[in-house]
């Protein structure tokens, strides 16, 4: 045989294919492949849309339920009348002033925690790196408690302080975990340490305010919707309107970022900018929610993984996680108010329910040996 051969692509180089149409290399049936791809994609999206629709319907149903039930039951007609602005004796106050703002705050905080949490988890590729595990909610909660107890601040000022503290804690955790690059493990552990310290600050602030009712104190320890009013709902709604779209606009960039920084950059994503925008938006959402209802335990951490389990790997988790977050807070708050004979703050219920799920998640990932 001849040792020196003409290499196949040298001869092909001058072939007429060069400037031609899509040139099938193997299977000539490109149309069949297009059908496969299209139908796979449609099936994937159909499941996702169904899940999102069901979740949204559940949120609406629970929202309605939480307006109707309570010490007095009001039928849907009364509730609708109150929402429409009519004066219904009894219902106008109970539903309009007490239940409606509370339900709105529940939906909004849940969505904020869900969105913010899943953003962190996606970006850091680690479900444990959620803002409530790595100390960001603790920071916002501590700052809010200190602002109220020591500086007698209230309303919007508390939100601002909480947001600033949340951003500062996020930066501090990042910098403390930085040692020639940030490893997820180190970030999570540093966050646990920072959270422990900040929780102590909250305890300290609570210690200084003995005149507080325990319920009010619990709000800053584990989150509570008791006494939620329109004053709490308004900044939250504002944050959601401004920061929600900002975050959703990053969906595709975040999707590319999941493939690793290098791959994302090669796909034309400006990785640093995406990360900064997403972190700021997520921290904003989380801290506004914390300022309104306290650090409702584990909602930010749980929403993403639960959404991922329901939806499966079918595109971005942002919207499903927001819905799951709202659902969690609504359910937990209903349970906290009516299931136990005593009224608990919502955070106690999410804490009791959520922590076993965290343990389960650790067990599951430890078993499979996967990366958490």
């Amino acid at each position: 045989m001849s040792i020196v051969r003409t290499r196949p692509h040298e001869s092909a180089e001058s072939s007429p294919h060069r400037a031609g149409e899509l040139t099938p290399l193997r299977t000539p049936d490109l149309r069949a492949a297009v059908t496969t791809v299209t139908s796979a994609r449609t099936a994937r999206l159909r499941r996702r849309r169904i899940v999102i629709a069901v979740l949204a319907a559940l949120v609406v149903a629970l929202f309605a339920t939480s307006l109707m039930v309570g010490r007095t039951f009001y039928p849907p007609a009364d509730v609708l009348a109150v929402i429409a602005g009519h004066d219904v004796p009894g219902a106008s106050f109970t539903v309009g002033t007490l239940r409606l703002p509370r339900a709105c705050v529940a939906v909004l905080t849940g969505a904020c925690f869900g969105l913010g949490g899943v953003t962190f988890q996606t970006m850091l590729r680690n479900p444990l790196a959620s803002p409530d595990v790595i100390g960001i909610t603790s920071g916002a909660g501590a700052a809010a408690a200190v602002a109220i107890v020591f500086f007698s601040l209230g309303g919007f000022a508390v939100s601002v302080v909480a947001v600033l503290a949340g951003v500062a804690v996020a930066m501090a955790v990042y910098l403390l975990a930085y040692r020639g690059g940030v490893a997820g493990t180190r970030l999570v552990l540093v966050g646990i340490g920072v959270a422990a310290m900040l929780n102590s600050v909250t305890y300290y602030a609570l210690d200084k305010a003995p005149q507080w009712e325990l319920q009010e104190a619990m709000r800053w320890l584990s989150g509570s919707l008791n006494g939620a009013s329109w004053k709490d709902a308004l900044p939250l709604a504002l944050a959601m309107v401004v920061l929600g779209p900002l975050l959703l606009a990053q969906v595709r960039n975040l999707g590319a970022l999941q493939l690793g920084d290098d791959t994302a950059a090669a796909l034309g994503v400006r990785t640093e900018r995406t990360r900064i925008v997403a972190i700021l938006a997520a921290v904003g959402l989380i801290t506004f929610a914390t300022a309104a209802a306290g650090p409702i335990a584990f909602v930010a951490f749980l929403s993403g993984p639960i959404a991922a389990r329901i939806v499966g790997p079918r595109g971005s988790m942002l919207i499903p996680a927001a819905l799951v977050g709202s659902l969690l807070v609504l359910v937990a708050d209903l349970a906290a108010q009516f299931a136990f004979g005593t009224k608990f703050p919502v955070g106690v219920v999410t804490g009791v329910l959520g922590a076993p799920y965290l343990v389960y998640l650790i067990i599951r990932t430890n078993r499979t040996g996967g990366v958490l």
Partner: protein
Amino acid sequence: MTRDRALTVENLTVGYHERMVIDGLDLAIPPGKITAIVGANACGKSTLLRSMSRLLSPRGGQVLLDGKAVHRMPAKELARQLGLLPQSPIAPEGITVADLVGRGRHPHQRILSRWTSADNEAVADALTVTDTVELADRPVDELSGGQRQRVWIAMALAQRTDVLLLDEPTTFLDVSHQVEVLDLLTDLNTARGTTIVMVLHDLNLAARYSDHLIALGEGALHAAGTPSEVLTPALVEAVFGLASQVIVDPVSGTPLMVPKGRHHSGRSAAPRPDVPISHLAER
């Protein structure tokens, strides 16, 4: 279907912290050909590739694509012309092949634009080319190493770029999959004229599968040219500090480097005519 793009490197200097990894490098990548970059570990191969795709900013000099500095091009515009497959990309848990390959369409999409039939076609084509259509619905986690690498290449193909850079596309693959991946890249270059630049570990595979071979040492260019011009015992000695012989690859006719080492090198310097060639030729 691809255009020839002129990719050149001018007086490029790149470094991390104090250390200069590449210092004043000049290069021209021949358009429409396969170029392989070889060199010892930590000689700046990956750094060069990452600078060419603007993952790293140069300290000095520039990388030009058709005369335009890549570091001043809008990110997405560059990503439509030049693709990069990094050494260890990350597949999110549970993602399906079709979904992963679809992510390669990112530079062609805007924030609010919808997924179009053109996107579907690009994905279908990328799957067809890489022979992964049947895998479209499978989770990437479940694939074998070779399949996974083909899927990643499909993702880079869905990007529809004229130039494709690959950082060690054959690492972690066993030898049959290495050949499979390199054959695929050759097919691609042959049929579409895509300019391919890859960093390769294996000198012999690099020599066999490239039209143009670049040997780097200590961040500087040692040699560039056709494999037979570049791969010589003198170069192997200079770049890797290894005594070797270069013989003719009996299968492809390209140069084949045979290391000497301290042991088992007692035989005569000339290739033994009876053993290797006839033995290989039978296969």
